[in-house]
């Protein structure tokens, strides 16, 4: 019974997710009609800024690297920290224990 209810809820959620994903829209700049979102992002001010200014400001050809290490560099520090935390966590779990701790 509980499993059946769970399954119905799951079907509901997944139908909602799939529909929502397929119905993402954006506005065609020329014709002002709604077109599928994929392939034509709408709000691109920030990204166009990166593409236009990465070479001038950071002197880097690879715009993604400019974003990763400079414009959003603190995210990358956080990401390196996450990896460090995972390594420390795994090391801690597999560490050598003292005799009285086994």
């Amino acid at each position, binding site marked *: 019974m509980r499993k059946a209810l769970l399954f119905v809820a799951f079907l509901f959620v997944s139908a909602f997710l799939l529909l929502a994903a397929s119905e993402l829209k954006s506005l065609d700049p020329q014709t002002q009609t709604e077109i599928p979102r994929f*392939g*034509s*992002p709408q709000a691109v001010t920030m990204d166009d800024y990166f593409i236009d200014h990465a070479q001038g400001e950071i002197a880097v050809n690879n715009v993604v690297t*400019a974003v990763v290490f400079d414009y959003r560099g603190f995210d990358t520090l956080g990401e390196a920290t996450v990896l460090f935390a*995972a390594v420390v966590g795994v090391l801690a779990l597999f560490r050598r224990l003292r005799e009285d701790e086994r």
Partner: protein
Amino acid sequence: MNIGNLPFVVAALLVVFGLYTLLFKRNLIKLVIGITLIETGVNLFLVTLGYRTGGISPIYTYAPEAQQMVLPTPQALTLTSIVIGLATTALLLSFAVFVHRHYGTLDVRKVKELKG
């Protein structure tokens, strides 16, 4: 349904598969696989958000002149979230190893010391 948004639908489908695995599987390793599937779906969704039809990758080294480029931010975000996913998966699998060491099983119905 809108066929133009097929990549988003595929990403959502991966999330749905992951949710199914999380809800209906009883093995710790399979739960980890479910979480990884959701992660992959979300990453795919992020990276497809930035695609511009006919755009080239946002790198100026030997690029064709005056071509439209795809958005760089989603790629940076995806890179970050992939590494985070790697880290969480590593820790989850280590916990699974230790649960197996203590309980002798990976079945969630038998790993139930903490209840109530």
